């Protein structure tokens, strides 16, 4: 890890600082929204939203090369695709009482298929792997701005409506009777999830980001006595996984995304085992 600390101050390795900064900023919305995703048990929906993001990225890459829209950042396409699929998934999950899982699965793969087709038709070589599993070299200052904006938005919304969101997650029927628009709050949660998963897509990728959204809150929930504690612990854990994952990946010359996720998964397993031992 010593090398890693040294590298962080190296003027030639700005990408490393950017990646770390992105992870630290992104850990705020990820830990906060992840807490509600885990508590409301909608990880599956979050995964579908994250995967469908490839459609937006592919479309933007195509537009940049073929239509000459070089000003368009792939992350903007990702944001739009995420919001669109969150809207559709929310609508399906609230309206259709049957086959919800099948429809959500379909949105998941349709988004990916659209992305892959666009990438195939885009001139020049683009490796979809970079978007699926993250590439530290993809991190730009635009990502930092997006993550900062999403973080501020998530924090603001949670400050204003956290009681309503908690009430809907705990007992939606009662919340409705108390005049809380439960369907609207549920959609809001999905839209926040969509914005949140996009923030770290460039660092850990579409496929892996979902683990970083759900593992820290799952670990935190083992010991947290309040939702506030769970949320703060999730943010700290997410930041920690990014920091140490990045450090290991740099020191051992491993790809960054998988290093971060593997670290999170290992801690999750150990925390579960430790928790069981303590309960005996």
């Amino acid at each position, binding site marked *: 890890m010593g090398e890693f600390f040294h590298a962080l101050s190296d003027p030639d390795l700005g990408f490393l600082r950017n990646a770390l900064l992105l992870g630290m900023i992104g850990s705020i919305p990820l830990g906060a929204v992840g807490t509600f995703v885990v*508590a409301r*048990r909608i990880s599956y929906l979050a995964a579908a939203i994250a995967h469908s993001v490839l459609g937006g990225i592919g479309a933007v890459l195509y537009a940049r090369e073929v239509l000459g829209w070089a000003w368009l950042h792939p992350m903007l396409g990702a944001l739009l695709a995420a919001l669109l699929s969150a809207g559709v998934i929310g609508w399906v999950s609230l309206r259709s009482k049957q086959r919800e899982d099948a429809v959500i699965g379909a949105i998941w793969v349709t988004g990916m298929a659209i992305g892959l087709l666009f990438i195939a038709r885009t001139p020049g070589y683009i490796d979809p792997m970079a978007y699926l599993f993250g590439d530290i070299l993809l991190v730009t200052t635009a990502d930092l701005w997006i993550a900062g904006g999403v973080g501020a938005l998530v924090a603001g919304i*949670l*400050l*204003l*409506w*956290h*009681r*309503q969101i*908690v*009430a809907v*997650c*705990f*007992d939606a*029927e*009662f*919340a*409705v*009777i*108390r*005049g*809380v628009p439960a369907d609207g709050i549920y959609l809001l949660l999905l839209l926040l999830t969509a914005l949140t998963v996009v923030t770290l897509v460039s660092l850990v990728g579409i496929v892996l980001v979902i683990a970083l959204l759900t593992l820290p809150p799952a670990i935190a*929930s*083992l010991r*947290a*006595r*309040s*939702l506030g*504690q*769970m949320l703060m612990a999730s943010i700290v854990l997410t930041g920690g996984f990014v920091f140490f994952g990045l450090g290991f990946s740099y020191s051992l010359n491993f790809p960054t995304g998988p290093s971060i996720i593997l670290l999170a998964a290992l801690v999750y397993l150990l925390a579960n085992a430790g928790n069981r031992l303590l309960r005996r």
Partner: protein
Amino acid sequence: MSESAHSDCGCQTHEGEPVVCFEGVSFSYGNNLVVEDADFDIFKGESVCVVGPNGGGKSTLLKLMLGLLRPDRGQVRLFGQSTKRGRARVGYVPQQIEFDPLFPVSALDVALMGRLRQGSFGFVSKADRAAAQQALEKMGLAGKSREPFASLSGGQRQAVLIARALVAKAELLLLDEPTAHVDVAAEERLMAGLKALGSELTIITVSHDLAFVSRAVPKVVCVNRRVHVHPTAKLTEERIRELYGHEVRMVQHGHEHLDSRGGHRHG
């Protein structure tokens, strides 16, 4: 709705506007008619039990009252208003809630949910906290307010849910099978607690326990698709057989208790 329209809907021995008014209400799930042509009023300060076989439409009737379901025909009014407006004055205690045991909310957090209002924000005022604390104390949970909801016993969770309904400053309390998960002693305490809440409060309780009904309330709403309202005294064995469609067995549990087995299911 005009005052004159109200006088048409059923019981006319009471003064003033009914708290709950069903006017020719029918409701079906798909092709399955669950409530047929329900026409009754419940007035301020009344204690009423809703009885009937499983799947007979008891919970559906509560959901219609709360505006969670919309009638196919007829209309339901709460305090002379639409159910959507009137339900702000209702405290609802569900039978049990499905919740994630890892969802870390305390008893106080749950009770505070009763203080949510339309258009309110996420901040908890001192008054909210005091009201929630007081409701928990009233339900015998003074020392448990910081405990995780999941770690409480079934009876204690029920008490928290009742506290949550009470802090809403409810004028109408709807309880769905409040004695389903508690023992006899807890049931007695619950009924004593409810009676102590005062004569202003209207209480509607769904119950399976006919012995409980005959002790607890003077008026029953019998639901088996059709809805009949009459004094509890008229709930004779013959009437019960008619309602449940079969014999209702007496079971001794140390206290008198009528137990229903089988019965029809309508979804």
